[in-house]
């Protein structure tokens, strides 16, 4: 099991059919992510980064080629199966934190766990993870808007981790933070990775990319080395 790659892309192509002509957003992309890696993906605007992240996050399926998440091929999965895969195997971290404004911090963090168990979750589970991302106990019952950007992103990371995903997908995780707070988040991610979490991060900031152990560049829908 631990020998198996977390993610495999085999000759993946993504074409968006448009009236004015098809747009090939990804063109024959192949790569592999092993357990415990910390990869950053860089590339100019329009190069296909978001498309790639959507495919890795099982939000979309490829036009041609195969994608395997922990050995499972996602090409012909139903929407229900893909949704369960996102819930159980993937943790998402967004540029704008994307917490639920109607839920407090603990509820935000335990949300994916409630989806999985289909019942109420012991708040202690959420508190445990929140402490592991170094969020102060006094904030646990606040709502997201009462927290600073850096604190919100820590909550988002805790939410992404709560179901023990195989992989953490980050889309410009520091893009909306000042550099000092961003560095704090990157230190946390580095520590998580050191403890075994596999991370893939899209960024355009070379300083942020330096935190990762491997950088992949993409241009015009192709991986360039």
């Amino acid at each position, binding site marked *: 099991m631990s020998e198996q790659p977390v993610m495999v892309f085999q000759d993946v192509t993504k074409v968006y059919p448009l009236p004015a002509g098809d747009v090939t957003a990804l063109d024959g992309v192949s790569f592999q992510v092993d357990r415990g890696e910390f990869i950053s993906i860089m590339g100019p605007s329009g190069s296909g980064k978001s498309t790639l992240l959507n495919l890795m996050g099982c939000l979309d399926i490829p036009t041609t080629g195969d994608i395997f998440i922990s050995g499972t091929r996602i090409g012909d999965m139903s929407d*229900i199966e893909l949704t369960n895969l996102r819930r159980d195997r993937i943790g998402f971290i967004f540029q704008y934190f994307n917490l639920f404004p109607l839920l407090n911090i603990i509820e935000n963090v335990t949300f994916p766990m409630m989806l999985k168990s289909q019942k109420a979750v012991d708040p202690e589970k959420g508190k445990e993870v929140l402490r592991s991302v170094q969020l102060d106990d006094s904030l646990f019952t606040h709502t997201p808007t009462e927290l600073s950007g850096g604190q919100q992103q820590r909550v988002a990371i805790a939410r992404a981790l709560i179901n023990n995903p195989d992989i953490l997908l980050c889309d410009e995780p520091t893009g909306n933070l000042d550099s000092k707070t961003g560095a704090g988040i990157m230190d946390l991610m580095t520590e998580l990775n050191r403890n075994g979490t596999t991370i893939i991060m899209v960024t355009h900031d070379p300083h942020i990319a330096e935190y990762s152990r491997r950088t992949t560049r993409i241009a015009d829908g192709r991986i360039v080395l």
Partner: protein
Amino acid sequence: MIFWEIAKRNIRINVLRSSLAMLGIVIGVVAIASMGILGNSLVASVSDSLSSVGDSVIVTPYSGGGGRGFGSASSSANLKITEQNFQQIKRVAAPNVAIPIYQTAEHMKIGVGSDDIVAVIYGLPSDDVPDLLNLKEGVYNNGNSGCLIGPTFAKDHNLIVGSRISIGTNGDKGTLRVTGIIEERGMSFDISTDSALVVTKEWFENTYNRDADYDEVVVKVKDGDTASMKIAIEKQLNKRKDMKIVNVMDSKATLATIYSTFGMVTTFVTAIGGISMVVAGVSIFNVMMMSVTERIKEIGIMRSIGTQKKEVMSMFIYEAAIIGVIGSTIGGVMSIMAGYAISALILNTTKHLFTIANALSVAEGMGFGIVICLACGFYPAWRAANLNPIEALRHE
């Protein structure tokens, strides 16, 4: 679980908007339920005043058209039921009693110098009176110059047992003494005595120079099978289709027709109430669409971290259901109050309020309210669930 909680909180956060949508439902439920209550109470109060009619068949002279109207108007033409026809009816009716009835409208005065009034006078055989009428005061009248009066007539003109009434424009038809006051009978198909006088057959025949040419014959049907009695009488008297002699009215069947007419009226006004519910439905739809549109991004986040379509859908259905249940409950309570007010104002009584029919009307209004909310919440919820997660996530 969590989606129920989110739905509740979203309603609380948008309390004004949600209350307005609820208000629509409240109005819709009140409109439907109170119309239903009004209709039911109307039927109940009518059946109350008709209950003393009992099972009777009323035979009147054939008047060509569709028979007589409700409440028995005196046949203006000289259409009468002859003694021979009466004997035929009597034979068919036996062992039930057939009561021949005279009827006219007459001027009269009560006391010296009082105003001239006009009232209906019925003449029927003394022996038959107890079969048809009950007294609340006094005794049945056997003498020729005695009469019975209806309770409304007695009250309106301050009459008691022993009072005297001078009959005719100038008292030219003699004086009648009140021997008894009849119990209230309400509206009825045979004779309406509440505001009338009842005299003996002999007095009527002598005074008006009548001889066995009756205005109406009432058959009291003991076993309740008025339909068969009606058929039997018609068969006997209206042998020739082109020369009918009598109209025969079955009180029970007529009552049934009246009830079904009331039923239709109730259904119709309830349907009008239903229109306000449709309007309420439109506002629920609007609120739900708003709720979905302003949360597209949130839906995208939910879907991307593993929320199933049906879970997104349930969240919005819960929201519509909460609005529906709260609105309908308030509406249910208010429609009972509205029903109370309407009954008290229009029917002057609230004794028909707490009935099964009214409970059903309220339940119907509430059920319709909840169903409308769910139906109008369904499409917005479906839209939310089927948003493309990638586009929803990008939404700002």
